[in-house]
Structures are given as C-alpha cells and as structure tokens.
C-alpha cells in the first residue's frame, strides 16, 4: 500500500492508502475527494481530474505525455506542476505523494 494525500481547495487533507497500479484519480473518487470530477472515467478525454503535484514530488511523478498535455489545455489555471490524476499510476516510489485540488475543474 502506498500513502497518498489530496489537499482539497479548502485546505482539507484527505489521506489514503492506495493500491499500486491504480490511478491517483481512482483513489480520489473512491475516497470522495471534493473537486475531482473525472467525468470521462479515466480515459484522458476530459480535464476534470486536474491536480497540482506538490513541488517536492514533481520530479518523481514526471511530466505529462503529449495526449495529456493536449487535454490540460481544457483545464483551469494550468501550472507547471499540473497533471491529470487519471494519468498518474500509484507505485512504491510515490509513497507519501501529495497533490492539491484546483479551485475548479474547467
């Protein structure tokens, strides 16, 4: 199990144990994190699971691929540490990962 923390826009922390191989988005939905909508269900076909990766984790999480970059064009207030959480797979190296939920999705 890998520990994940979502920080909602109002500052509430959501700590959870995530299974390796699951996506960060799936864990948000499972734990009802407010502000993660995931309209398309994880197909990288919307931009409603947008998160900001905590600065300490951006290197480990990595950069979005081209298709994800394309979808990020539709997101609100995109920052250099923006990712779509459906495209981040949970793995051992991400134990302790912190992501923040933006003010709104699109």
């Amino acid at each position, binding site marked *: 199990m890998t520990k994940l923390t979502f920080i909602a826009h109002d500052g509430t922390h959501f700590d959870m144990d995530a299974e390796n191989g699951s996506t960060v988005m799936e864990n948000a939905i499972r734990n009802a994190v407010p502000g993660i909508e995931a309209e*398309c269900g994880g*197909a990288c*076909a919307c931009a409603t699971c947008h998160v900001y990766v905590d600065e300490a984790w951006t290197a480990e999480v990595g950069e979005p691929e081209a298709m994800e970059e394309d979808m990020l*064009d*539709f997101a609100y*207030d995109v920052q250099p540490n923006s990712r779509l959480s459906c495209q981040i797979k949970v793995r051992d190296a991400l134990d302790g990962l912190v992501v923040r939920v933006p003010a709104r999705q699109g």
Partner: protein
Amino acid sequence: MTETTRTDVLIVGAGPVGLFAVFELGLFDMKCHLIDILDRPGGQCAELYPEKPIYDIPGWPSISAQGLVDKLLEQIAPFKPDFSYNRMVSSLEKLEDGSFRVTTDENEVFEAKVVVIAAGGGSFQPKRPPIPGIEPYEGKSVFYSVRRMEDFRGHDLVIVGGGDSALDWTLNLQPVAKSVTLVHRRPEFRAAPDSVNKMYAMQEMRQLEFQVGQVTGLTGADGQLSSATIKGPDGDVEVPCTRMLPFFGLTMKLGPIAEWGLNLHENLIPVDTEKFQTSVPGIFAVGDINWYPGKLKLILSGFHEVALMAQAAKRIISPGERIVFQYTTSSTSLQKKLGVSG
C-alpha cells in the same frame, strides 16, 4: 409551413445505445429516425475516445470505441434508419392522438408515436472557458462559434485555444478582423500541422499575434469587451479585444430535454426497469441518461434496456397485436427482416 417528418420512433442521440435501439425496434418492424447534435453517429464513443479500447462488450475481448460504432451501424443497416445530424431537439409537445411532436433548433418538425431518449451525458455543447467574469460578455462580444464571419469585421479579435477550431478561425478571420491575437497555453498545438505552420508564418509577417499564456481577466462594460489580460511566461500582457472566440472543447449538458416535463433525478431521467419508460407514457429513456435503482452506466446495460423498451414501444405503436418472442438464430421472419437466410 415547415414540413413534418413522420416516423414510428424518434430516437434522441445516436450513441451506441441509440444505435442498438434501432436494431431491437426494427425486429418489431418499427421505423426509426435518430437526431444527434454531433455531425456523425457514435456519441461519446466517436467524439471523446474513438481510439480507446473497450473491454466489456460481450463477445469482444477488446474493441475500439469507433470499431464498436462501425459494427453497430453495420448491424442496424438492414433497418434503414434515418439520421439528422448537427441538430439539437428543442421542444416536445403531446398531440391529441397521443403521439409527440418534436422540434429541433433548426426548426424541423418530427412526429412520432414513441420518443426514445438515448442522449447519454446530454448534448455536446461548447465548454465555457476557465476565464473569470466571462458570463456577462457571452453572446455580446464573446462567442463560441462563428455564424457569420462579417460579425468580426473590423474587430480586435482574440481567439483562445490550441485545436483545429482555434487555428482555422485564426487563419480565416485574419483578413476580416482589425487584429487577431491567438492565445494558447503552450507553443505546441493539437491542430493540423499545416495550419500551425501557416499561423507561425503569418506571425513572422506581423499579420497576427500569437501569445503563449492563459486569459486571466477581461475588461469592458455592458457586455462589450475592450481588452483581455493574458498571463504569460513573462507576466501579464494586456491586449486589445472587442471580440473573443474561446475554443475549449465540448461538454455535455442535458439541455432542452430538461424542460420536457419529465421527472428528473439529478439531471438524469428516472425510468421503470420493465419498460424503461419515463414519467410520461410513450417517452422512454435508455443508456447513460436514465436512472433507476442499481443503474450502471455501461454500454451493455443500455443494450439490455433497449431490448425491453422495444417490447413496450411495440405495444404503443401496434396496440392489440400479439407480440411473439423470437430468436434471431431460428426465426425465419426475423431473418427476413435482417436480410439473411437461415
């Protein structure tokens, strides 16, 4: 006087479930007409993720979303359904003889004894861009589509987005507008490379401006824009803007169906699980748009729903006629309808 199109069943939405409804209704000799807001069949499968594989269609360990749509079209071809694309249903009215009159945003009129709503997540509509305070300008100086190019003549035009719509309109409106500024979050585009090259060439010749960044603020009064603030890599830039065209893709909204007098449950349409009929007899809802206890938004659930719906629709269209349950594998009459020999 508008011509009225008459059909047995009017299907709102040509996604996988709407398409398969044609098959089940066709087996009972009901003629279908489908209306869809997109320019082609397939709904979300075709619009959002045509290349993505689907793994839970029975009998297909893996099939691409577009592949499924193609197979469904092949399967329903014997029933010769009619399609109207690029249309949104607007009003619905119940007629004295119990049938329904449905009009579209193009002012076409359809009359059908049965209406099947297979509208999925709703109709695709332009997404409002993430620009604070944009609402008062919408329809006055911010537009989500170009109806007449003349409307942009002599304007300081800002186009926002990085896809084909944004690039195409940048190139097409450049000769008409006073100035054109294209704003996109990054220097890479999702558009045809040829359009992107043309745009960069025109920027070289100072015929248009390309700003990397995101629009963060609008200035103007009474719905009339005067300038836009763009947050770029080197800070904020203020650009003149009297017309804006944001292209931020499509989102799904229930739309005018919400005004049809059907009971709703959080933007979904409650149905019974025997007929998948709504609160108005003769109007059915199938697929992602309906709701009942235990509902799963799966394509395969939608397929099951249309099979049961078709039985109920037949009772409305041919009252008193005995419905014989038959298998396509063994029924010669069904095989005749499908154009195959047993």
